[in-house]
């Protein structure tokens, strides 16, 4: 215990004595952590975005007015047999009208004009699927000769393109995120390696004397590893403060522009902040200790 505290203390003084090299190490480490976290967060935002659109998606099949009830039920059953299909809901002419009236209740003139004519709205089936990327499996059914005659229109194409684009965006950010984080990690490793190397060189005399008065290798090497770990801890603190500040100012804007997504984001941050801090802490300490360990292994010769 006494020994551990001494190693800890000595690690701290290493850190202080390194001056601007410590600052460089921390800067690059903070950049690494922020990059990593930002991509994690953006990834979550895109995923929730996709989810919320997926939930909203309805494939609506509109029927001709003369479509027979039996044919519609037959189609409904065919669709229900597909495992991709989540729910199917029949919307009758009357129900469609009711909805339309509800949606336009602020527009009495429009409603007035409807009263005079016969219900112009077609009956329809509203279909939800589990995975919108697999909407294509439904197409052959709609193209079936049996149903072609009764189907007036199938609407789903626009939604599908949006989702495809979002998918691509997620894929892209994932790749960019991984590459950027890796690049920063390697840079951080190199810079901290060199910082610790400098620390070892400037303290060569001290290290030699430590050896000669009977210090064990762990007592000599420990402080440098602690120094590396300290870079990780301090960088995490700074990075969390920066990310916190950015989100504090950004969250209202996000909520404003993206509605649900913004809510999800700040909710995500709030419910995952602990996890995010620990992930950063882990990565930070890992990078710090690994690079100092490499430097120590190379430059502290124990004999």
């Amino acid at each position: 215990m006494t020994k551990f505290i001494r190693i800890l203390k000595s690690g701290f003084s290493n850190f202080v004595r390194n001056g601007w090299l410590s600052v460089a190490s921390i800067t690059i480490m903070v950049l690494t952590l922020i990059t990593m976290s930002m991509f994690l967060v953006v990834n979550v935002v895109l995923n929730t975005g996709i989810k919320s659109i997926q939930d909203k998606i309805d494939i609506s099949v509109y029927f001709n007015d003369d479509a027979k009830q039996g044919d519609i039920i037959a189609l409904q059953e065919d669709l229900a047999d597909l495992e991709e299909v989540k729910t199917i809901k029949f919307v009758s002419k009357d129900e469609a009208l009711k909805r339309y009236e509800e949606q336009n209740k602020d527009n009495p003139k429009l409603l007035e004009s409807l009263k005079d004519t016969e219900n112009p709205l077609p009956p329809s089936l509203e279909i939800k699927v589990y995975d919108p990327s697999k909407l294509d499996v439904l197409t052959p059914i709609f193209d079936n000769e049996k149903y072609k005659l009764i189907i007036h229109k199938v609407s789903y194409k626009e939604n599908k393109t949006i989702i495809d684009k979002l998918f691509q965006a997620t894929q892209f950010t994932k790749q960019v995120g991984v590459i950027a984080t890796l690049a920063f990690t390697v840079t951080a490793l190199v810079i901290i390696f060199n910082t610790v190397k400098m620390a070892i060189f400037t303290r060569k005399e001290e290290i030699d004397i430590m050896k000669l008065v009977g210090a064990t290798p762990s007592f000599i090497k420990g402080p440098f590893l602690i120094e590396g770990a300290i870079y990780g801890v301090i960088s995490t603190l700074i990075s969390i403060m920066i990310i916190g500040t950015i989100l504090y100012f950004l969250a209202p804007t996000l909520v404003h522009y993206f509605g649900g997504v913004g809510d999800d984001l700040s909710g995500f941050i709030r419910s995952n902040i602990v996890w995010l801090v620990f992930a950063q802490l882990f990565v930070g300490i890992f990078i710090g200790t690994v690079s100092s360990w490499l430097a120590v292994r190379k430059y502290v010769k124990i004999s």
Partner: protein
Amino acid sequence: MIYFDHVTKIYEQNEGEKIEALNDVTLHIKPKEFVIIVGHSGAGKSTLIKTINREIKPDSGDVYVGGINYKDLKKRDIPYLRRKIGVVFQDYKLLPKKTVFENVSYALEVSGIKAKDIKERVPKILELVGLSKKSNSKPKELSGGERQRAAIARALVHQPRILIADEPTGNLDPKNAWGIIEILLKINQLGTTVLMTTHNQEIVNKLKKRVIVMKKGKISRDQEMGRYEE
């Protein structure tokens, strides 16, 4: 206590020229002995000493200290070995940024001694070498003799069975030199084996202790109650 069995150490100089710093040295030092090693500059005195605390490894021959053959010594045992042998280095090797007290306590810290025990032991040892008043001075604020005392204090703080002092009287005026010798004699009387090197003929001749003369890496003379003449 210390036994050298045909020990040879060869250094390679820059131009591939080889120097036998120790050339087939055989020597035996018994517990509680006081031994003086003399010889010209470059005779191999420091090399002999560095072999004892395992700062250097001989090229051939066996070194035994306290019954242990250094060939059987594992790397991880070396720190523990060094804590049992007090060494006063020719160039002191004090840490310039630490005070006398810190320099001495440092040797205890590295071996995991409790802070409370350190606070007790260090003042006692500084008292012994007569450096209590300079406890808070940095090495550069000390005279040569005081630095030497600080180095001795650090070497003794582990209460080693063997104390090795490389030129402990070098560059010191006679009064200071004798002060240092008196400390070494006192330590020796308390039961520690003492091994010192020196160039100082007067001290050697007055001490009337065992004298080993080295010449070009070889032991040229080994005499009880020895004298040293050019």
